[in-house]
């Protein structure tokens, strides 16, 4: 595939005219840093110098950055040459292409080449760049596995593209994505395997990562995040990539783009001071005063480099130093990132870590796929992430570099440089001042005039305006603006307070967010936040767990629970106590227990010296004061006796209280204990908006207190009365009778359907009675007792979601899940700690 390289192999070298008195400068490596160094050097050169330049690659200096467009075919090698042969001739540089240096002899002050020649230097520059990191998995050295570093790699990829087939790119960073996009343009079927939860996590936050993933997917590239490579498969050539979870991706080509390592081998062998890279001072001098290093091979004050901007700064300083000037020392500046994939606009610079709403300004335009975030600290810009519209990247970068105080422009900062100087109006006045043809809802193209005239025709609520005009019906982001228009148009008559925004990150209500998650098929936190125009980058402690629940409830089995967004109790499946110990409450189905279970509980209490054992108000036993590290062993013992987690910590099903019922009681009408056990077995493990408690009483004397439970069943001669909306906590509230069924199977189905309706519609943290108050008792009655098809469908959906949910979390952890939760990261022994404490 020689056509992309126009240079023939080097001619046998003609001896050059050497100035005998001149300084001898030898440079190892002809990459981007060396190229810039020589340019800078000859631009200022004073003393006559003979330069010998060794490049392991058999070609002249080229712009490595532009290998991506060469790969994709958008550019040819000719287009990216920096210095052609004529340039070297003009500077009288002795370029040795295709000749690698194999050793540095510091005593003799010369370098040795692969062909055995030795060349003397007065001063030596090491510019050997870096080496691609190859993850040490089986099969990593099979033919068909390539890295992406130089033109040879590009040629190998082009050869593979000519044959077609599947390519797997390992690594979803800058380099990996440019490789993937290029290969896709060349007709390969491409997959990207990335270890982290979102692409380019070192340069982008999760919101931008979400948009990027969509854009990459739109190019026909399949993206696997949180995917760990286990092995590369194949006998004589790669055939596939196996992931740790067992999935196998077919592959005719594998590109490893997981990172780079400074190439410090020569320096190290020569006894120079090295760590990750060749250690240099502020003037690029190594531990040997005649030897310098520049580019990606260096380590400067603990830092290594992977982008050209700082390398160019180094080159300039070193050139000045070599020319005998006294330059100011090197200080690495912030660097910005762009992705060179046609049609994808992203920009990031600086620190983008803090997702605290007070330290950031966020602007999202879901309809146009735009996300902008500027991160502030002490009123200064410290970082920016822009996706979709990067025009202001340079401006933010400039504000960052200058460290300007931006408090005066904070409110308009996010709109970009063009907006600066305009005055900030109060929001109602700003909306009122808009012309009639100003677009309010970008998704549905509804302008202000249309909305105002709809309001003037008699509409008074956001819902009505949405139904009539479609404004805010698609992503909901303009809901706030529509409300402002209602306020401006109706004045006093507008009762805006009836709408409660979910949190300060959005103007939408819980119910609206749930609706959008369902209708727009949003399946991850970043998807919800971007498509619904969240005002923060990562949500806040109040919306994170709520959204997590909505996604769990909406996409059972598909959505992966965001474990870290859960409160400690739900994370470790036990309740934290005031001294940092935990309580453990096993299920006692319907309040029934056996001598064996009681013995097992007693044994566990003894064995782990559990200080307190208590009967709870929910008909079961609480073991209090368990140490965290003992939890797995405590659970294992309880599991062994047939007991499982009672979910005493969960926003989910807690207890089903029962009375003895017909089996024993002289008044009992039905088997209330049996029904309670069946209900508990049916519903256990289910996540709900808030905790859920049930009870079944055998007769209207109601010894199980069913009339203060979320769902209560009272058995009567003719069957079962089903009650809802009781509570006995912060609010005490007796239940309402919803209806009557004759048979036990019906009681189970109806109760589960009620629970599912609550799961699907309830706002996070609303107990069941609060939801019914909003939903309407009559409406619920019709849904459950009259619309038989709807009830059956609810019941079906409940069963489906229970398939994913009904696992014993204790058994899972005893088997090893989340084991890190229960073990310290490390224990520093008395000896080591003594050193530290003294």
């Amino acid at each position, binding site marked *: 595939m020689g056509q992309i390289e126009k240079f023939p192999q080097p001619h046998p070298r003609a001896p050059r005219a050497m100035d005998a008195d001149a300084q001898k400068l030898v440079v190892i490596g002809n990459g981007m840093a060396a190229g810039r160094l020589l340019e800078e050097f000859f631009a200022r050169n004073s003393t006559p110098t003979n330069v010998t330049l060794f490049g392991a690659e058999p070609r002249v200096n080229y712009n490595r950055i532009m290998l991506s467009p060469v790969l994709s075919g958008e550019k040819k090698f000719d287009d990216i040459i920096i210095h052609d042969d004529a340039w070297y001739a003009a500077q009288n540089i002795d370029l040795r292409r295709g000749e690698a240096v194999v050793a540095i002899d510091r005593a003799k002050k010369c370098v040795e080449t692969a062909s055995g020649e030795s060349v003397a230097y007065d001063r030596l520059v090491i510019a050997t760049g870096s080496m691609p990191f190859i993850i040490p998995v089986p099969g990593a050295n099979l033919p068909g596995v390539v890295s992406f570093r130089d033109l040879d790699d590009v040629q190998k990829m082009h050869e593979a593209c000519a044959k077609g087939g599947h390519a797997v790119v390992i690594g979803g960073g800058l380099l990996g994505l440019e490789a993937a996009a290029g290969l896709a343009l060349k007709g390969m079927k491409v997959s990207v395997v990335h270890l982290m*939860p979102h692409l380019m*996590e*070192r340069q982008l*936050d*999760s919101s931008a990562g979400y948009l990027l993933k969509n854009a990459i997917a739109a190019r026909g590239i399949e993206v696997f995040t949180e995917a760990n490579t286990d092995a590369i498969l194949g006998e004589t050539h790669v055939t596939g990539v196996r992931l740790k979870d067992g999935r196998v991706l077919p592959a005719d080509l594998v590109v490893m783009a997981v990172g780079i390592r400074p190439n410090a081998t020569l320096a190290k062998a020569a006894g120079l001071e090295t760590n*990750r890279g060749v250690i240099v001072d502020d003037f690029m001098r190594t531990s040997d005063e005649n030897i310098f290093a520049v580019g990606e091979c260096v380590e400067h004050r603990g830092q290594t480099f992977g982008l050209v901007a700082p390398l160019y700064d180094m080159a300039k300083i070193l050139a000045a130093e070599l020319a005998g000037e006294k330059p100011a020392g090197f200080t690495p500046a912030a660097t910005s990132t762009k992705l060179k994939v046609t049609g994808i606009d992203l920009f990031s610079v600086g620190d*983008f*870590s*803090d*997702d*605290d709403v007070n*330290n950031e300004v966020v602007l999202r335009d879901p309809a146009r796929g735009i996300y902008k975030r500027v991160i502030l600290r002490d009123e200064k810009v410290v970082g920016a992430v822009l996706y979709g519209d990067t025009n202001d990247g340079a401006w933010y970068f400039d504000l960052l570099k200058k460290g300007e105080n931006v408090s005066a422009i904070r409110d308009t900062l996010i709109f970009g440089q063009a907006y600066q100087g305009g005055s900030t109006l109060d929001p109602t006045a700003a909306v009122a001042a808009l012309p009639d043809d100003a677009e309010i809802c970008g998704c549905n193209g509804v302008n202000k005039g249309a909305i105002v005239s709809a309001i003037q025709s008699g509409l008074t609520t956001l819902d009505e305006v949405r139904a009539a005009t479609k404004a805010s019906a698609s992503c909901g982001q303009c809901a706030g603006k529509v409300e402002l228009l209602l306020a401006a148009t109706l004045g006093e008559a507008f009762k805006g307070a009836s709408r409660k925004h979910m949190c300060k990150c959005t103007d939408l209500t819980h119910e609206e967010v749930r609706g959008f998650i369902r209708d727009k098929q949003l399946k991850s936190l970043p998807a919800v936040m971007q498509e619904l125009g969240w005002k923060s980058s*990562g949500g*806040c*402690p109040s919306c*994170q767990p709520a959204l997590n629940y909505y996604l769990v409830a909406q996409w059972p089995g598909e959505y992966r629970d965001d*474990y*870290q*967004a*859960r*409160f*400690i109790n739900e*994370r*470790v499946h036990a309740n*934290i106590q*005031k*001294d*940092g110990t935990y309580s453990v409450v096993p299920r006692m189905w319907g309040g029934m227990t056996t001598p064996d279970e009681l013995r097992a509980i007693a044994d566990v209490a003894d064995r782990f010296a559990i200080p307190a054992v208590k009967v709870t108000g929910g008909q079961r036993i609480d073991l209090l004061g368990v140490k965290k590290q003992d939890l797995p062993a405590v659970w294992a013992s309880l599991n062994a006796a047939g007991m499982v987690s009672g979910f005493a910590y969960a926003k989910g099903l807690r207890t089903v209280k029962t009375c003895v019922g017909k089996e024993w009681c002289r008044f009992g009408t039905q088997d209330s204990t049996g029904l309670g056990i069946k209900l508990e077995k049916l519903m256990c493990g289910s996540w709900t908006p808030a905790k859920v408690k049930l009870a079944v009483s055998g007769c209207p004397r109601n010894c199980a207190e069913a009339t203060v439970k979320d769902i209560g069943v009272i058995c009567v001669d003719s069957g079962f009365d089903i009650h809802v909306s009781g509570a006995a906590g912060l609010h005490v509230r007796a239940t309402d009778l919803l209806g009557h069924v004759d048979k036990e199977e019906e009681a189970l189905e109806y109760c589960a359907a009620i629970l599912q309706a609550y799961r699907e519609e309830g706002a996070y943290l609303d107990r069941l009675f609060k939801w019914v108050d909003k939903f309407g008792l009559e409406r619920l009655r019709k849904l459950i007792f009259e619309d038989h098809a709807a009830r059956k469908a609810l019941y079906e959906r409940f069963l489906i979601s229970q398939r994913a949910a009904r696992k014993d979390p204790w058994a899972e952890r005893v088997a090893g899940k989340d084991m*890190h939760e229960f073990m*310290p*990261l*490390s*224990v*520093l*022994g*008395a000896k*080591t*700690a003594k*050193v*530290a*404490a*003294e």
Partner: protein
Amino acid sequence: MEEKFWFDVGPVSAVPLRGARTVRTPSREIAVFRTASNEIFALENRCPHKGGPLSEGIVHGRKVACPLHNWIINLEDGEATGADHGCAKKFPTKIERGHIYIDMGVLAPA
């Protein structure tokens, strides 16, 4: 002199993103946090309010919410934020070759 106070406490990857792990020493427990953007911080694992285990809190941004009564503690300096006052002891950290090092020198007399 300086060097001996840095202790390797384990790989970065062993701490969950937006999570924490603990390091036990004979005299105290240290919570090692990892933020969404892969930064590492270490604080004594005692909330300045009533001693709650900060390692069990929800990590958001560079802050952690104490699991007991929801005080919000700044990971950078251990200070309580907002209206609350108090400070959890901070330990300097560094990452080398994927491992977390904690500087116990802060406990040494000056």
